[in-house]
């Protein structure tokens, strides 16, 4: 039905754009990661493995990377813990106002990221709402320090940001679970809990995987949250990259880290795709 000319005309413009603005930039990332910076702050186009060696040998990067992965894992887990029950509730239990509730969950997503981060800053500060609240009710007598400018704050804020992201695919997956399967399970004598564990959960796994991947990858690449609420102990790997492109001026090293992240993300996506393909039956 579609002529070859049509298909070419349709595929060509985006292909061209994507080649120029995605493929080539990634290639540049690749190239830069093998170059180096001279002591005079000039980028020397000399191909070497110095950056990667630095990454592997300097323990600071390993530490920050490890912490970032921990934070990312924590955020993913908490977001799932919050998002899944929410999705389950909305999909299976909420009969009236389902639409409205759904919209309510979506809305925080479109509130600016900065705005939400800033709000958490207001809440968690030693001068902030939470501390004020605790002190007002005499629960504590001095401001609780670790609330802000700590990895705790980063995890908290990012969980808040990514819970709706995690909710979305899980909700979609749950909506696709055939209700008659659930009914059958209950009819055959399983309790709701067993049904949840053995029928619903496995069927919704693609959604869970999608949400988890999203949360994990984006948290890993987040540099704003640590800058807003992380403090010196909350630095994540992306902050390192940012400073390498800023004040620390070492583009090649920054490129090396970014490229590694890129490869990690792509590998993770491949993995998830594989797992999903094997898991779903259609």
């Amino acid at each position, binding site marked *: *039905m579609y002529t070859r000319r049509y298909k070419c005309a349709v595929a060509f413009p985006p292909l061209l754009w994507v080649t120029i603005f995605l493929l080539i930039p990634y290639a540049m990332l690749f190239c830069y990661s093998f170059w180096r910076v001279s002591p005079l702050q000039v980028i020397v186009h000399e191909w070497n493995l110095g950056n990667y060696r630095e990454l592997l040998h300097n323990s600071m990067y390993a530490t920050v990377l490890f912490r970032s992965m921990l934070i990312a894992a924590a955020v993913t887990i908490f977001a799932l813990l919050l998002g899944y029950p929410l999705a389950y509730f909305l999909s299976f239990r909420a009969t009236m106002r389902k639409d409205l509730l759904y*919209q309510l969950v979506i809305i925080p*997503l479109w509130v600016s990221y900065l705005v939400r981060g*800033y709000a958490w800053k207001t809440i968690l500060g030693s001068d902030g709402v939470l501390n004020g609240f605790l002190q007002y009710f005499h629960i504590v007598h001095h401001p609780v320090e670790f609330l802000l400018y700590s990895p705790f704050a980063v995890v908290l804020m990012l969980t808040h940001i990514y819970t709706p992201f995690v909710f979305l695919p899980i909700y979609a997956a749950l909506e696709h679970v055939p209700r008659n399967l659930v009914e059958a399970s209950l009819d055959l004598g399983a309790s709701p809990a067993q049904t949840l564990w053995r029928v619903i959960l496995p069927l919704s796994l693609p959604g869970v995987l999608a949400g988890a991947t999203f949360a994990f990858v984006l948290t890993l690449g987040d540099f*704003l949250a640590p800058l807003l609420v992380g403090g010196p102990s909350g630095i994540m790997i992306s902050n390192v990259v940012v400073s390498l492109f800023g004040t620390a001026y070492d583009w090649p090293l920054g*490129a090396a880290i970014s490229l590694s992240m890129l490869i990690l993300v792509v590998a993770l996506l491949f993995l998830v795709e594989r797992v999903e393909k094997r898991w779903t039956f259609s």
Partner: protein
Amino acid sequence: MLVFVFLYLPIVVLVLYSFNGQGVGGFPPRELTLEWYRVLLADPPLWGTVRNSLSVAFCAVGIALALGLPAALALDRAEFPGKGLFRRLVLLPLILPGIITGLSLLMLFVTGGINLSLLTITLGHGTALISVATTELFAGLQKFDRAQEEASLDLGATHWQTFWRVTLPNLKISLIAAALLIFTLSMDEIAVSFFLIGRSNTLPLEIWSRLRRGMTPEINAISTVILVFSIGSILLWYRLRTRTVVAEEEPTSMLSGTLAGGQA
């Protein structure tokens, strides 16, 4: 449920404190005042950045749609070698942290000798958001009844005519929904913009730099304004989306769909 409280607490606090007379912090809030909104209105540099953000957002919508539509069409209809790679490449910015997209584009511009400016930001946003446009439009295409196009072609219309008179009108709602989404995302975009700004700031970056200097409730005020607008546009988006819905289609299918690789 509790989750809702958690989700909304910061927002409520934010709005509340934009009216707080005393300044940042403290509990409970002291006087209620519109003072900060007054300050906000009298702040020209801030509104300059709002203008910047708006123009970037509009252009980004243009770019993303102009390229996302053919991309969606290609993915929906054409088979060609490298299609899988193409699909993944187009959709990658959706999940890739903005920092990587931003950095790689920065390298491109620097190597190409292009100065950083609003133009580079626009190109960055447009590129990153093509993925959003493509997913949204692809979903719209999937729901579209192919028979209509066939009928049109059978009746003698050219592909171009068919496109303009049959395909496009049917995609109208998808297009608008995509546009809204892209616009909203562009207005809040920080990660990519961070690396691509020149001399002029976009709104989120301006707020960011002010935040680093110290908080003022004026930021609360502008945030509340942004909040109201965002809620407005997302409600609009949702209305549009559900208008075309048949039982299964969810505004969320993009993610599970793309990650499940079901669209190849």
